[in-house]
């Protein structure tokens, strides 16, 4: 077992984990933050997307020990003081989700997308979201949500 420490959603967390523990399993199983989902085993679906030091990362592509000292934000940490992040609000307003399973990862990717592209075109949004698979929405309303959020985020 190895000890890892990181800041998760603003709180310092320390735990003993097996060295081969993926970050996503540490988040889900040790921290019980189950909003981060696992939808595949080949780093394709993006349901486990979180922010590591502010950048979106598929949490199945990192070992927990690689996140030593990192600042992690998961979907549970996105809303501040009970107020939804504009991206979360936009997904609700624009029906950007159906079953909700891909949604946390999709939102986390989209937040990073808008951070890097403050006023993204539809083409940019579609291109940037290639790594997040949704089987329910056909992406139409996801694209609409991200566009709306980018406008609300001051893009």
């Amino acid at each position, binding site marked *: 077992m190895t000890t890892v420490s990181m800041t998760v959603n603003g709180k310092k967390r320390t735990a003993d984990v097996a060295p081969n523990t993926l970050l996503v399993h540490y988040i889900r199983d040790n921290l019980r933050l189950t909003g981060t*989902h696992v939808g595949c085993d080949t780093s394709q679906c993006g349901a486990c997307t979180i922010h590591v030091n502010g950048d979106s990362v598929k949490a199945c592509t990192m070992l927990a020990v690689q996140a030593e000292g990192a600042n992690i934000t998961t979907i549970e940490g996105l809303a501040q003081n009970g107020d939804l992040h504009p991206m*979360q609000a936009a997904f609700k307003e624009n*029906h950007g989700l159906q079953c909700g399973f891909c949604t*946390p990862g999709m939102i986390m990717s989209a937040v990073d997308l808008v951070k890097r592209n403050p006023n993204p075109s539809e083409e940019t949004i579609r291109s940037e979201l290639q790594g997040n*698979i949704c089987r329910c929405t056909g992406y139409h309303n996801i694209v609409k949500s991200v566009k709306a959020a980018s406008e609300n985020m001051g893009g």
Partner: protein
Amino acid sequence: MSIENGIGASVRRKEDQRFITGNGHYLDDMNKVGQTYGYFLRSPHAFAKINNIDLTAAKDAPGVVDIFTGADMVADGIGGLICGWGITSKDGTAHKAPPHNSMAVDAVRHVGDQVAFVIAESLQQAKDAAELIDVDYEPLPSVTNITKALAPGAPQVHEEAPGNLCYDWELGDKAAVDAAFASAPHISKIDLVNNRLAPNAIEPRAALGDYDAGSGELTLYTTSQNPHVARLIMSAFLAIAPENKLRVVAPDVGGGFGSKIFVYAEETTTIWAARKINRPVKWTADRSEAFLTDAHGRDHATHAEMALDDDGKILAFRISTKANMGAYLSTFASAVPTYLYGTLLNGQYKIPSIYVEVQAGFTNTTPVDAYRGAGRPEATYVVERMIETAARDMKIDPVEFRLKNFIQPDEYPYETPVIMTYDCGDYPLSMNTAVELIDYKGFGARKAQSEANGKLRGIGCSAYIEACGIAPSAAVGSLGAGVGLWESAEVRFNPTGSVTVFTGSHSHGQGHETTFAQIISDKLGVPIESVEVVHGDTDKVPFGMGTYGSRSLAVGGSAIVKAVDKIVEKSKKIAAHLMEASVEDIEHEHGVFSVAGTDKKLTMGEIAFAAYVPHNYPADLEPGMAENAFYDPLNFSFPAGTHFAEVEIDPMTGVVDILDWAAVDDFGNVVNPMIVEGQVHGGVAQGIGQALLEGVLYDQENGQLLTGSYMDYSMPRADNLPNFRVSMTNTPSPSNPLGVKGCGEAGAIAAPAALMNAITNALGKDIDMPATPEKVWRAIHST
């Protein structure tokens, strides 16, 4: 008077708050004290005899609690998995349903077939132990392609099904069709492959079994679209536990698309094993297991012929289909290529006679069952590719050809030659609306522009029809269904006026918590935030049939309406008593009960309170305000419409670019347009996936699954799809009290034919799905 958040309003979804904040409760998010982890050892062979399974080393591995095989389940008296719909072949014999044990007993019949269930203190320990199991396999020649499987000399998947034939079924008047063809001036023909698909709900299947030794109760938490049906089958056929000792709970479920209807080996093994070891057992599929074991969809090979007169009027339609059932018959597999397929081959057209024959067969592949649309996408694909081909052969514009042959709005009820009675519709209206939306007339100029740029441009449509709201129980019973297909609901007022609705339908993305609440809000004036919708727990909701076939609103919603009607009836009696009027004088609108011709009125909340605190109350009336209803529909509903696709193809690369999509659907009345449009988007995306990208492939030599991950199976991604233009027409269904039809599958039904008609229009030749760049490029560059 309309009501805020009532029927017809695009209310934002109540369920979204928990999903966007990471507070949903999907199955793998759940854990129980003392929980163990299950892992299935699966067959690496497509077909093999099992001579021996040696568990000795594995049982001694660290952390192993126990390991079970198929023989253990048989010894424990656990029955096999069943197929719940009986199909009768042409010769009067019943379909062949070979044994389907949850885990293999003497042979494995597809790659991924369950061989042993390892239970350990951790998942890693279970996986490690599984590697120590020594299975003595005797590999056998396998067959995965349905045409090859039904040919003489093919490997025999089951002794019980000679020639691999499950059934040879027919529908329609063969003699009339043959006679029409014999004298027809024109005959068009087409051969089609409907490619095998993997459903790919993004949440993998999972199960958590929990046994209470004190009460003897078993609880299965599972990713199910229909928990009561799962309980019924596990109790009645597998003998896992009596229904009163078996609870099935489906919490938040991350998509289904049909794949979570079925009663699978993994779930039944998990709940059985929990009692054997007297500890909770959790199993969660990884994506590889999902590809190997979630029931696949489609996989038809079809030859179709259409007879026409000199004016382009359809005289007769003849269809012959081979349908791949996979290695075993899944829960409703037999019905998909028969009563959910053959009965829709009339499309939107006046066709004097139709004859369809379907040979279903076994192969060494994952079982095939209902996937979004279930038989109707296959039917629409045949009809609309055939219609397009006939129009092209006759050199008639495909839109004009369809308009010439449509059933007209004044011809309902319309009895088809394939035992359906269409209740309402307006097919010319949806076609003409779609023609405007896509600017069909302007296509020629756009095509010329594309040609000037060195591109091929095509346009195509699909005028689909489907049957939803499945279905009148007596009708489906006469066709072989083993269950009734009604739905249940209970509407329960709390004393303070809030409402809990219990429904037998199950939401796994459809938004029932919002849509059903809108019905209550509209009918009873209760604010939508004061309505809770409860589903998915056999200990909470009345026995229900679950969600599939776009039936939840038409059947489940109607059950809610019937329960509401009883609430209103009782409330009128209470209102009459409290306002000292006769019941006949009480009028009701949106939860306000008034005495006709006076200003006296009471709200639903006041009446509900009076029902729970019945100090001043009708003497002969029971207290309380809760009513339940079971609703059995009068008929199927028949959503229909026209979808247009416009594409541009780069002849250098073969890449198909979807430039425009126009969908015009008639879903009858619509409760929440935002949700309905979302369902269309998602359905069309899956249909585009089928036509452009997706396809399950097996190695033809050794039966290995070649598309077993998202690295190999091409899922539609955001940059593969266009924006969709969605419009609706409305002919309210006369078959249910809401006048609704169902919208969940229409997109997946309409889209493949529309897109392939557009692509073949651009290419000037036929190709099969999926129209991958390679296939398109080869079509362009072959002579």
